[in-house]
């Protein structure tokens, strides 16, 4: 709770300063800068509250695990657009790549709500922590092994930013944040929740470092769904 109090009071500090500064701004440029800071501070508070709400709903059994049929492309396009709009990132900052072009539209059955939360967290983290304007890639591939169920693999790649590399032994722990991640707003709940949802779907999220890039990846197995 102390961590969440600190994380909410931090953007509130910007709001307390900015509300006065905006009223006294001497130039349009100063006004625009303070307005942007205020909007970002509000967005940060909303993100914190949304994280807490998702965790609360998950732990209370209120997050729907219902499986439905979807095509990856139809799930990802609105999710990425929404993320880029919320963070004011250019629409092409996140590149979605398929191992085979047809994988984009091939139907998959899975817990769409859980998958959306996981991808929103992984891509949202990449947008937040990777160096500004550095490219982010979401690679998707179908894996076929003779006699085995088909698998769908997701991998998010982004450059390592000023927050540094998370401790791989702690990265999915509740409230864990990388050493310099306190430079940015965050609760340390997103990756923990994402891992819980992945486990519920019979999967597991992995983190690895590839040179100057971080990769978060997980694999879904056809026919394996989260319990209702």
């Amino acid at each position, binding site marked *: 709770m102390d961590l969440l109090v600190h994380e909410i009071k931090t953007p509130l*500090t910007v709001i*307390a300063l900015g509300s006065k*500064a905006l009223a006294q701004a001497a130039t349009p440029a100063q006004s625009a800068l303070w307005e942007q800071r205020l909007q970002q501070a509000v967005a940060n508070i909303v993100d914190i509250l949304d994280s807490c709400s998702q965790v609360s709903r998950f732990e209370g059994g209120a997050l729907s695990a219902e499986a439905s049929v979807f095509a990856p492309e139809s799930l990802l396009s609105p999710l990425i657009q929404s993320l880029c709009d919320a963070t004011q990132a250019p629409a092409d900052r996140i590149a979605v790549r398929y191992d085979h072009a047809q994988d984009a539209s091939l139907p998959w059955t899975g817990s769409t709500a859980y998958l959306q939360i996981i991808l929103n967290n992984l891509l949202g983290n990449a947008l937040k922590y990777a160096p500004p304007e550095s490219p982010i890639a979401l690679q998707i591939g179908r894996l076929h092994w003779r006699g085995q169920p088909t698998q769908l693999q997701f991998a998010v790649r982004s450059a390592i930013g000023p927050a540094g590399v998370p401790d791989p032994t702690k990265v999915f722990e509740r409230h864990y944040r990388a050493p310099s991640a306190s430079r940015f707003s965050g609760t340390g709940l997103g990756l923990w929740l994402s891992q819980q949802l992945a486990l519920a779907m019979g999967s597991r999220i992995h983190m690895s470092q590839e040179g100057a890039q971080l990769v978060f990846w997980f694999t879904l197995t056809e026919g394996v769904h989260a319990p209702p």
Partner: protein
Amino acid sequence: MSPYSIVIVEDNLAVQEALCDHLREQGFEVRGVDSGAALDAALAQSSAHALVLDLNLPGEDGHSIAQRMRARFPRIGILMLSAALAGAGGGARQPQVDVYLRKPAQAQALTDALRALCEAADAR
């Protein structure tokens, strides 16, 4: 008359930038850093009348920094920003700190407290 010089130690970039700009707009000369080590480097370049410290810093926290700074610079003003109440997870108030303000600090209260600290540091 030269402006009063402030160094802000705050690891959250958004807050650091907002504090720096607000205080500059109030006429202070301001530098922002993100750690005790960075503060040492900043003060090695030039002195300051007062410091604004975030209590909850990763690594060396605000109280530890205040203790060191008070020993090195007895006249410097020290203002601590804390999200917690003293004694309620925020730890006991330290004699090295001149002023505690709870986050989110009101802009005018922050400005007035710093101006008073700088005037006192200048007069000593």
